[in-house]
């Protein structure tokens, strides 16, 4: 009997833990759905994530297959969004293009990493920017001066120009686009993290950690960094939007992913040649895709920020 009651007690505790885990993992969704703005943004972003993940099942065409008898076609049953100047299916190119942005990072012709190019770019920017911001904010003094003045100098360069300089110097490839996004994004993140660090380092638990004799690295990455995650996540979400836009800009200028990659920016650039000739589709759909994804990410970030502010 006692065994049974003991077992029930275990089950009760385990169930409670499971419930708390479930509620923990659902909490962000509850936060999103409590804001109408965030919900709309989430729906748009989810759409692109879902179509990019399931792209091979959503179209019979390869994004590079050229039907040379059917260039610049309008929407039809065979090609729901039409075809581009080489007879490639625009829907296939659009959703495979979304994969590159959100799901897959093509390091080289034979090597792909999970996580989209834009996400990798922002992740790298977060890594570099957070580290610099933490060091600068926590250490202060001449280290802070040097790091921040250097980052200020970088921020003073117009963003598009900086992208162009970096990619023109490094060459057009997915890896170099990630590097460019990281370099352009890092100063902003560093400033944000530094500001948060300056506030957090005055708290009692930081003093306590210092009194315990914890190392600076431990304090920065274990005590301070986790407490900056809220604003960083919101900022990162906005930065993914910027990164998508940057990828589009670079692709449009011929400095994005090399052809025949279904890069949205280069699709717009190539398609625009035929707008005045009466075939606007190839430029229209990728423009809509870029705009919708960027707007979706911004709405999501804005909604979350509002909700978090209210919650706090």
């Amino acid at each position: 009997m006692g065994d049974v009651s003991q077992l029930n007690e275990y089950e009760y505790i385990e169930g409670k833990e499971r419930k708390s885990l479930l509620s923990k993992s659902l909490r962000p969704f509850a936060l999103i759905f409590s804001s109408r703005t965030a919900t709309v943004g989430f729906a748009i972003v989810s759409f692109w994530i879902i179509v990019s993940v399931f792209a091979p099942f959503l179209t019979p065409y390869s994004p590079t297959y050229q039907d040379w008898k059917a260039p610049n076609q309008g929407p039809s049953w065979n090609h729901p969004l039409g075809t581009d100047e080489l007879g490639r299916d625009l829907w296939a190119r659009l959703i495979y293009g979304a994969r590159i942005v959100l799901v897959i990072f093509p390091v080289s012709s034979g090597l792909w990493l999970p996580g989209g190019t834009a996400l990798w770019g922002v992740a790298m920017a977060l890594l570099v920017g957070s580290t610099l911001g933490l060091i600068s904010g926590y250490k202060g003094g001449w280290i802070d001066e040097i790091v921040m003045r250097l980052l200020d100098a970088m921020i003073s360069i117009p963003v598009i120009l900086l992208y162009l300089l970096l990619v023109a110097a490094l060459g057009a490839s997915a890896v170099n686009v990630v590097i460019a996004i990281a370099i352009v994004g890092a100063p902003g993140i560093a400033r944000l993290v530094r500001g948060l660090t300056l506030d957090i380092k005055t708290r009692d638990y930081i003093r306590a950690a210092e009194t315990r004799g914890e190392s600076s690295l431990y304090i920065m990455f274990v005590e301070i960094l986790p407490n900056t995650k809220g604003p960083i996540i919101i900022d990162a979400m906005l930065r993914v939007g910027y990164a998508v836009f940057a990828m589009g800009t670079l692709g449009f200028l011929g400095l994005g992913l090399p052809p025949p990659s279904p890069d949205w920016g280069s699709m717009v650039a190539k398609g625009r040649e035929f707008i005045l000739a009466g075939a606007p589709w190839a430029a229209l759909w990728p423009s809509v895709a870029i705009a919708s994804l960027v707007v979706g990410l911004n709405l999501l970030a804005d909604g979350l920020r509002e909700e978090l502010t209210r919650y706090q």
Partner: protein
Amino acid sequence: MSSQKINEQVLELKNQMDKGLLSRREFLRYAALLGVSLPVALRMVGLVASPKLQAAPVRRGGTIKVSSQVHKITHPAQISWLAPSNQCRHIAEYLTFTDSNNITHPYLLKNWEVSDDLKTWTLNLRQGIKFNNGDELTADDVVFTMNQWLNKDVGSSMLGLMSGYLDPTGIEKVSKYQIRLHLKRPEIAVPEHLFHYPAMILNHRTFEGDFIKKPHGTGPFVLAEYREGERCVLKARKDYWRKGSDGSPLPYLDGIEFLDMGAEMAPHIGALKTGEIHVIEASDMGGIDLYLSFKNDPNVTVHAVATAQTRVLRMRVDRKPWDDNRVRKALKLCQNREKILALAYYKQGLLGQDFHVYPKHPEYCPKPVPKYDPEKARQLLKEAGYPNGIEVNLAVGSDWADVVRYAEILKEDAAPAGFRINIQTMPASQYWEKWTEVDLGITPWTHRPLGTMVLNLAYVADDQGKPVPWNETRWVDKEFCDLVTQANGILNVEERRKVFCKIEDIMVERGPIGISYWRNTWLPARKVVQNITAHPTGYLVLTETWIAKKS
């Protein structure tokens, strides 16, 4: 005709024409090259020169606005783009003029005479022509300019074109208005070479290396403003040496404004559609969008012309893996030419055959168009030591939309053969910085009226056996060079064609290039622009153009 000394070769040409071996047009072209004036040549073919018919009366005045690109210009002999030459040609002029039918006429020259062995050319200048600073044009200016072309330090493309048959020591000033060229070997295309776009005649008294600082030429316009990347403004001269159909000096226009609208065609097209500009000078960047955008526009006339402009898939034969002819042949076999022409250029051109001779060149020797054969290409790669295929980089300028499409189609179609092509796009200006250096690339080549012209420019060696400056592939083949030299001195078209048959075979068999298509080009102009024609070389000449009143 009786007063003009007729070269024996002309009589031989007439004989060929009478036997049906030469068309009237080809006869006119070669007779003109040999110094026979056009009216005389026309009478020899049984035609009478008629005065130019004009649809509307000439109207003087107005400034024509041309969308273009305004590049940096220093030395006219160094010009390697069409756009700057189209601006400069209205300020400085050429000794000859090749019209849109590929017939070459004397221009600053009054006439020329050539010896029977085609090795001595006597050039007679027109008298009384003045530069826009008041200096008279004399033989000294011609000798000075020709020495600039042949100066290795200047780096002109004229060097590649002429150095094979002419040394600076072969240029003789006979009198104030006469120059004699003593060639190292026979050459028929001298007058056409004198109209090559960097061949503008400079003022030897004032030219110091920068034409924009002292823009002294004999042309109908003077330079009023030149801002690189922005605009080039020209104003009409009042004392130009040529007269218009109304008896007053040309030009009919008061001025020309070349506006730099960038390398993208959309702003150019939009500006012409709305009437902000009169003409699009598309030169190197014009593509199929010009034709597609204006073919049904009621306010615009699309002047069309078939040309020898092409996109050359070129391989550096001094670098691996392109030093192996099997690899070169394999890549050439991967060109699905019909598909490339259909998708890259919307069927607006002719199919190419991997030799740089245009089907409408007089000496063209008909050859079958090679078939797309990835299986054979794979076999060749295997034999060359690449059983698992090969990864190569292909450099292309992103400003040339049809080049990028060509590259994308090639990548797709070469994959079954084992080629893994990484397309490296870059702005066109960046491509031009290294066009002779990249291992594998697609280079735009402009139209040239004779088959030998481009062969001398890009596929032969100089006297020391080194590739000429524009030999971007570094391909030097002794037998080929000898045949080109031989062809340069053959006037008889049938004989010349026999040599070209061998030349073409060599290029197909072991040459360094692939050519998939030849491009038509277009010169779109508002309907008010009168007396303007498209030139196969992309040359824009507005000396006799006028703007009609709007109806």
